[in-house]
């Protein structure tokens, strides 16, 4: 691994640890000040959910550090990923535009948390489909 790549990965790891810390601290603060006490993605509060997410980010960051030695940088996979991601962005903007038009015609009544979770699932599905297509083509 070159020095520049090492610096980038170290910076990424530090950023991930900071992000995990922010999630955990904000979760603790929300719980301490009794904010966000609603049913949120099956958690009893937004704070608990943030703490959970923070620990997940922390664990994955630690796991990446320990498995980094065997990681292969593959430019083909990167290109496939970039192309699949460009389709995700396209569907995100196009889908958002369509939803805005539909909402203008007849208002959509759906909880924002449900809508976001469905959207994320749809975008992940689009990403997987295009990743598979490009991996077969390239």
């Amino acid at each position, binding site marked *: 691994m070159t020095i520049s790549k090492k610096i980038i990965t170290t910076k990424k790891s530090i950023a991930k640890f900071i992000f995990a810390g922010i999630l955990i601290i904000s979760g603790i603060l929300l719980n301490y000040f009794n904010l966000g006490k609603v049913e949120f993605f099956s958690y009893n509060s937004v704070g608990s959910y943030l703490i959970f997410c923070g620990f997940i980010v922390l664990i994955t960051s630690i796991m990446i550090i320990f498995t980094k030695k065997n990681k292969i940088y*593959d*430019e*083909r996979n990167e290109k496939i990923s970039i192309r699949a991601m460009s389709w995700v962005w396209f569907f995100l903007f196009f889908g958002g535009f369509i939803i805005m038009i539909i909402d203008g015609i007849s208002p959509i009544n759906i909880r924002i948390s449900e809508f976001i979770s469905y959207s994320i699932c749809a975008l992940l599905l689009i990403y997987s489909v295009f990743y598979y297509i490009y*991996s077969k083509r*390239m």
Partner: protein
Amino acid sequence: MKTNITQLRKKLNLTQEQLANKVNVTRQTIISLEQGKYNPSLELAYKITKILNAEKIEDVFLIK
């Protein structure tokens, strides 16, 4: 893009896996390169040329 990777690799008795490990990519990338499905970056093309003991990049990669 056509390539001579298969012939040059077999001359050196290298498997796809071994070549992939030497240039630090996955075996799937080598398969795609051999099938002419994927155009490599200049860096990867240079690495492969060097490992396959070819003189020039044009000896390994041929533009159709």
